[in-house]
């Protein structure tokens, strides 16, 4: 599709064949589409829900919202358990999942994430177990606070996981995805709080959800404006539909959360708002996942920007590096 820069101008690039629309090999993708299945966007959602819930639990614990703290701890433990199951299930060789802890590599966000999770997950389980049983309260609070410190990392590293790939839709959005993902995590954790706890005790959850939705909408807007041609993969197709649905659910849920803060809404209304926030967060993660897949499938997203980069590099000063890449 992108016909930019076709008029030659590059060294040694004489037009031998009148240029047709052939900018790829039979329209086949240049990079491979991810082999990850729905387990991974599910994990993006659940990991975010867990991470932000742990932060919320720590904050609620310290500020005396103990009912909310207990719900958030339980939610974090449940979400991270499901997360781990999804991650192992998605492996090609699940029996070898422990090989994740064979080395530690900062160049591999998945390696970093595996180590963070292996520290974080036991803390959330301990915090939840103590909160539910009432046993070892001091250790429980300590685990809550430690999980609260790791929670933001759990919620944000997954953006680096996607950004550090060759899928144009993910890589080109590597600056914005962390804010979208932490925003989405906050939305989900806030939503869970609204579902689990009566409104009068869920103030922090409602406020966190409103902030989360605002961050999500801002980050999505930035992706749309700043990442170039790959933004189209976020606007169109299944990804576009999912992301629009996520926005609608998020805004609806945030409005419900706002109402819960201002008035005394019915329990049903608060639960519905919370459910909308949770669903919106999940749908957004699936949308981002789909955008990456779609951007890898169509070679125009790979070839177009690279071709443009070469054109820019070769045009300005005469005698620019005579790179032989083309």
């Amino acid at each position: 599709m992108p016909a930019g820069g076709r008029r030659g101008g590059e060294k040694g690039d004489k037009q031998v064949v009148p240029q047709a629309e052939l900018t790829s090999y039979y329209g086949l993708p240049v990079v491979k589409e991810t082999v990850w299945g729905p387990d991974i966007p599910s994990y993006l959602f659940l990991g975010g829900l867990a991470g932000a819930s742990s932060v919320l639990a720590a904050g609620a614990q310290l500020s005396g919202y103990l009912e909310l703290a207990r719900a958030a701890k339980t939610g974090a433990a449940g979400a991270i358990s499901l997360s781990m199951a999804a991650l192992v299930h998605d492996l090609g060789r699940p029996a070898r999942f422990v090989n994740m802890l064979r080395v530690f590599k900062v160049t591999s966000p998945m390696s970093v994430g595996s180590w963070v999770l292996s520290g974080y997950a036991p803390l959330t389980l301990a915090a939840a177990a103590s909160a539910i049983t009432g046993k070892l309260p001091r250790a429980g609070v300590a685990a809550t606070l430690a999980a609260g410190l790791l929670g933001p990392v759990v919620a944000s590293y997954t953006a680096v996981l996607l950004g550090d790939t060759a899928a144009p839709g993910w890589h080109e959005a590597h600056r914005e995805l962390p804010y979208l993902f932490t925003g989405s995590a906050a939305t989900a954790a806030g939503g869970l709080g609204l579902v689990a706890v009566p409104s009068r005790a869920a103030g922090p959850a409602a406020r966190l959800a409103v902030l989360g939705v605002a961050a999500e909408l801002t980050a999505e807007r930035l992706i749309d404006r700043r990442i170039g041609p790959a933004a189209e993969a976020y606007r169109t197709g299944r990804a576009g539909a999912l992301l629009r649905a996520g926005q609608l659910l998020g805004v609806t849920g945030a409005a419900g959360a706002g109402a819960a803060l201002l008035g005394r809404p019915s329990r049903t209304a608060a639960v519905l708002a919370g459910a909308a926030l949770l669903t919106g967060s999940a749908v957004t993660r699936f949308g981002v996942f789909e955008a990456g897949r779609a951007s890898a499938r169509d070679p125009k997203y790979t070839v177009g920007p690279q071709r443009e980069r070469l054109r820019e590099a070769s045009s300005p000063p005469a005698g620019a590096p005579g790179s032989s890449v083309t």
Partner: protein
Amino acid sequence: MSTPEAQRPDRPQQPGAEPDRDHGLDPAARAGHLDHPPRVGFFTDTSVCIGCKACEVACKEWNAVPEDGLLLTGMSYDNTAGLSASTWRHVAFIEQSAVVPRPAGDTWADPAGDDSDGDLRWLMSSDVCKHCTEAACLDVCPTGALMRTEFGTVVVQDDICNGCGYCVSACPFGVIGRRETDGGAHKCTLCYDRLGDGLEPACAKACPTDSIQFGPLDELREVAQQRVTEVQDAGRPEARLYGADPADGIGGAGAFFLLLDRPEVYGLPPDPVVTTRDLPRMWRHAGIAAAGLAAAAVAACRGGRT
């Protein structure tokens, strides 16, 4: 001939590369292989490829790579379609139907003077893993299954790979894949087993026209420079090297090519950049976002108090 390895400093510098940039550095030395043999690779000269697919067959046979689906693609003589977990050499066929000016004395010309085939140009090219100097697959592998060998090549250790699939999404060339049958990631090993015994890789051995040349990378780069000049002087100014420049986005490929058209025509990315070059910036943004989440939670918990 290149300098004997024993006389090289630990971090040999390639001519033309800036000394304090990583690009020209020897990847085997960086990976901790001291006193290693010279870095080896492939120079695939597509101008003499005849599309016989002996490389595809030799690779399959030597490496016992399983069958990867039998399909009729409709893409010229290419029913292999592309590199994957079970295809480590792939011969592309591109039919270009337009008048191709023939250089004087072109041996393709029909001796009888019949020029009726003059409007077809057939490009053939045997693609393979690039064994990048800065290899994204290796960078992102969480288990250490992907490793840098003493020859400077990149190999998957099948007994360690847990099939996470990260390398598949990270490769800027779409080379490595995950095999359905065993769940593991697989790609060209540059015949690691043969190298150890002083043999050249099976594809290069089988290539009848020497389109696939194997050898120390330094030497191959020199050979390729001469060859591209030769082909250009012979009336093919569009000839170009692809992946031969250590200053490119992957630090130069261990397997590079002479092409007769733009890389994307062959299904290759025109300007690949290893994704991990942006990783420091990604971690920075993730750190700021994480701090933002913590701050938001603090604000949310204090909000109702005042």
